[in-house]
């Protein structure tokens, strides 16, 4: 009897895989119950992430059968990935554009307008001359705030381009600019750390 049951439960097992695939096939927005948009309510996203983890985390499945533990681990892994992706503007934009069939090539420099490049050069020059200025600490902070403001402008622009105008190709080039600015900001903040 056990053997024949086993045969039937293998059929059931297939439907387990199907159910699992259904869960894992959700995109990050669906998984976290968020509208499919670049603009995000960060506090709400964070609450959704924590509620999801509170439901699927392997700690909730201690001593459950191995299949369930595996399922819990896969879902908790995916929840972490979803949170990391959606909480970061660059990753969120790349992911959303990818869902729309647009690949963002981070190495491409095409579509960088002269104005953007000029601004980068001017920031870079300021950054490199900070050591020679009379008050390097406040010059550093001024530059940092300026770059943060520049980043925030790009993020706001992306909300308009992706969610409202749906100009995906233009958005892709803005995302590359945003990557560029984020990397520069990291450099600035790393220097700040060393001084602190």
């Amino acid at each position, binding site marked *: 009897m056990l053997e024949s049951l086993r045969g039937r439960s293998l059929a059931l097992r297939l439907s387990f895989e199907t159910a699992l695939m259904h869960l894992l096939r959700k995109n990050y927005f669906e998984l976290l119950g968020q509208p499919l948009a670049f603009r995000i309510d960060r506090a709400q996203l964070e609450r959704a992430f924590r509620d999801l983890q509170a439901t699927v985390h392997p700690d909730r499945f201690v*001593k459950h059968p191995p*299949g369930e533990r595996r399922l819990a681990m896969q879902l908790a892994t995916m929840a972490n990935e979803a949170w990391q992706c959606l909480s970061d503007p660059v990753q969120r934009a790349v992911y959303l554009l990818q869902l729309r069939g647009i690949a963002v090539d981070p190495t491409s420099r095409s579509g960088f307008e002269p104005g953007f490049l000029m601004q980068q050069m001017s920031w870079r020059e300021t950054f490199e001359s900070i050591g020679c200025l009379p008050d390097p600490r406040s010059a550093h902070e001024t530059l940092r705030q300026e770059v943060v403001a520049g980043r925030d402008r790009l993020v706001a622009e992306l909300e308009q381009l992706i969610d409202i105008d749906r100009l995906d190709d233009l958005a892709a080039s803005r995302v590359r600019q945003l990557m560029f600015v984020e990397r520069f900001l990291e450099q600035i903040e790393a220097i700040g750390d060393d001084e602190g």
Partner: protein
Amino acid sequence: MALLQISEPGMSPEPHQRRLAIGIDLGTTNSLVATVRSGASEVIEDEQGHALLPSVVAYDNEGGCVVGHEAAARSVSDPVNTIVSVKRFMGRGIEDAKRLQTPYQFVDAPGMVRIRTRSGDKSPVEVSAEILKSLRSRAERALGGELYGAVITVPAYFDDAQRQATRDAARVAGIEVLRLLNEPTAAAIAYGLDAAAEGDVVVFDLGGGTFDVSVLRLSRGVFEVIATGGDSALGGDDFDRRVVEWALRETGAAEAGAERPIQDALASGSISPGDLRAMMVEARRAKESLTQQALTTFTVRLSGSTLVRLPLSVERFDALTADLVARSISVLRRTLRDARLSPGEAQAVVLVGGATRMPSIRRSVAQLFGRDPLSGIDPDRVVALGAAMQANLLAGNRPEGDDWLLLDVIPLSLGLETMGGLVERIIPRNSTLPIARAQEFTTFREGQTALAIHVVQGERDLVTDCRSLARFELRGIPPMSAGAARIRVSFQVDADGLLAVSATELSSGVAASITVRPSYGLSDEEIAQMLQDSFAQAGDDRRLRALREQQVEAQRMIEATQAALIADGELLSEGERSVIDALLAKTEQTAAGTDPDAIRHAIEVLALGTESFAARRMDQAIARALAGRRVDEI
């Protein structure tokens, strides 16, 4: 407990269903076991009323051993066969062990270092298992029943090899591990910081042999470890050693400018290994008395019956150890920087570990943060108390809504060796667990049919500067031109921080995978042998025990399945329902018999048959979790 147990809010298991869960602080110097009784976490004492079990194992001639106070008493007369601070050797090779200045004879062995004792060469896992067994029987005696499981704490800085070794030790000791928990996190739980609304908590843990700093972010019942730092070779023992080195120089047993006075004195024969242990014990006493008074006398009678008496002031002690304190504070600063947290922003600072009783440490920490750290709970007990609370939670003894979820991070980056001995980082440190990452590689030679995969852990760019975790080979790649093969290597790290790696060649589908048995770990055969040895010694009736375990497991599974059917039976079609009903009946019938293997088989089949039901329930639970949130907000 089997199927998704989604209990209704406010429902908790009936008192008679409470499961006996314990928290274990497996410390370098002392170990403790605690449990939650009548809602309060308390340390379980042994029959003599001791809470702390010295983490000491002494081996005798008959192949047996003693653990704890009795063993510690032998550390002076028989230092070579008395293993203290074994935690420092967990998951470590002989080179690491030799650097640590100990009286032991180390034996190089494939995997972890072995320590030569009169009853044979012992792996650190076996030695730790003896400590765990002692704690387990203490707990079973005090609680009067079979243990459901344990939460065991590890330093946040422990790498994969050290975590594996700790889990292996529990396995050998016959303890089911519910979760490995970072020590600082356990301390935060003990202070009830989960009840605090929001904020960042810094945990400063200076134990006997390890130092950890963690920055935890608490919000809405979730503990997130946002940064960890530490030094796995800094602890209270180092302060004792400074005192011994000072004493050796003062007495002329070592030269005034000697860089390694302990080795010199041992090598020249001016002190014996027994003298060294006696001096270490006295150094610890002197250090402890200097937390209360400004002056003490370092007094030891050496084996040559020379009496050493040296006055030691707290100022002198602080000067001898100033660089150790500075080292800990610089690690603290670095960790705060990793967390992007300025000292003023920390909501609370928690002190853990007996060594944080030292006034110089408290002063330096208070100075950095501009506030006094929390120290209301005994710093020796706080970790075990928190672990017991987490064990109680994982055992399902707390009602839903009155619980918390702990999200951990991986302390050190994981990567692969690539051309030129460079590390390609796959999972960056401080990623929230569990996590999975995959990366594609290719072959570099014409017609290459195999690829060696070397997994390392650490932050440095060169493989030689990182810890080697595992090596394995992907074979049977069809011959292709260089660069044509596409090899996808996937890492999966579970909630305990343990790693599994798999590799697949994408065009041919050739696959290889391993659950990482680290280079410094033990093979499954070795663990099986240790288990067998311990069974043989305990003289257990294995079959009877196995039968009982399987029957309990079957009962759990049956009850959980029935509860799930009552709650969400409508998710099943009639046909699916009848299969599960039949499996339930079969499991009940088998469990009434006496064949443990048959019961295990029946449980497995029942588990398999209910998996898709479980997945559907999970889907529904997720939908409810997110929907509930939205309703909340309107």
